[in-house]
């Protein structure tokens, strides 16, 4: 099963097994990663699952599509490596992905 490494808002780093096909957000929720709120449940309608993709993984994860990009526009502290984790699907290609949870509590 692919492993995703979450670095939460407290700096705590956790390596979690997340089934392929789930989103990185769902993996975070399953493993109780602090800071991923996912208020809209993953429908790209809020920005509370916001995280920063580790630089080394940026190319492999890819950029957000137009809708996600728009939704990200007003996320708190958007950076070039920002993604909405509900829009990143876990696969074996992302085994070892590192994401840093953003400050999502508004």
């Amino acid at each position, binding site marked *: 099963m692919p492993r995703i490494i979450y670095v939460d808002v407290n700096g705590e780093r956790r390596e979690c097994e997340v089934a392929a096909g789930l989103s990185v957000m769902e993996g975070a929720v399953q493993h109780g990663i602090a800071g991923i709120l996912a208020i809209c*449940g993953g429908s790209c309608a809020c920005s509370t699952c916001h995280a920063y993709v580790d630089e080394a993984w940026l190319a492999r994860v890819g950029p957000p599509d137009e*809708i996600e990009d728009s939704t990200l526009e007003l996320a708190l502290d958007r950076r070039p490596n920002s993604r909405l984790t509900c829009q990143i699907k876990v696969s074996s290609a992302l085994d070892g992905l590192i994401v840093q949870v953003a400050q999502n509590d508004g």
Partner: protein
Amino acid sequence: MVTSAYPIVVIGAGQAGLQVCDSLRKGGYDGRLILLGDEGVLPYQRPPLSKKFLTGALQAERLAFRPASYYDKIAVELRLDARVTRIDRAAHAVILADGEVIHYSRLALTTGTRVRPLPCPGGELEDVYYVRTLADGERLAARLARATRVVIIGGGFIGLEVAAVARELGLQVVVIEALERLMARAVSPLVSEFYAGLHRQHGVEVKLGRSVHAIRSAAGGVNVELDDGSSHAADCVVAGIGVIPNSELAAACGLACNNGIVVDVGARTSDREIVAAGDCSFHYNGFLAREIRLESVQNAVDQAKVAAASLCGDSASYYQVPWFWSDQYDLKLQMAGVGMPHDASVLRGEVGPAGFSVFYFRAGALVGADSINRPAEHMACRKLLMQGTMLTPAAAADQDFDLLALARS
């Protein structure tokens, strides 16, 4: 900080109930905390039930907000088969259906709503489905998988989302709406008309200004008889005609109720030891500067945070921009603010499936916007509303005017 031998009890294990628990812990409350639910499943998100869940693409487990271990982690005692039948305020007690008594120091009512049943004959037939609970969703998903024709009663968000899914599943779909336009409570005529066109383009038969006279059992399904004498055969009917707040427990114990459990801007009921939040509450909304009952994830979450603060004895005021979304086909409709009523509206972009926004004004001030596949404009409007930033109708309509820059400034 509340210190008492008795726990804080939360009645209703949905979006608001869970948020009250989260916020209480975050706010430093470290006493006993009990979350009571009566659906027998871990707290879960409802929005997918009228959308992707119906295609069978999402297993039930994926709807849960958090895994069971989470509740242990934050020391919330989850009771998922606890139906509360009475609140005894004098005794600070909650009485369950089996007679068990749970005492509380403070109480949070996050009981949500239940579906409004069809008033016509035949509304109680087996082939009539509602969409509110996970159990409803599972039953309906199973039925749609075996059906070829569905009649949907109610052209609001639930009805239209189900219609979109049913079309995607290849069913023949008829939507019956009693008012003259779709989603009349929430959107402007322009947006209603766009969606009627959208559904028709997808092959849905949309009947406006029509009501259901009766639903009759028929071979292999039902016959839906309308007030104009027409009749529609279907395998099943889905009814989405609104919800009723679950305020009976509150009313029975003497709390003020009026289209929901009445609460002030701090989510407090007429009893200072009891708060209410979410779909069940008729609340003073600080942002809208009036009392209202809002049915949304946003309200459940934001109001629950205020309720938790009030439970801790902090003075908190509910002041947040309402927002809402609806997914139909590949279009995301997002609503910022409450645009109805308005005295002026402007279109930004061109009406069409590529996306556009409609901005609403009242006495010259921006009050809301409906955005279709324009999430940046939706977000900009939310920010502008929260900040109270001035926006002229001309600027809203001008696609060269940078709304995002204004929202960021």
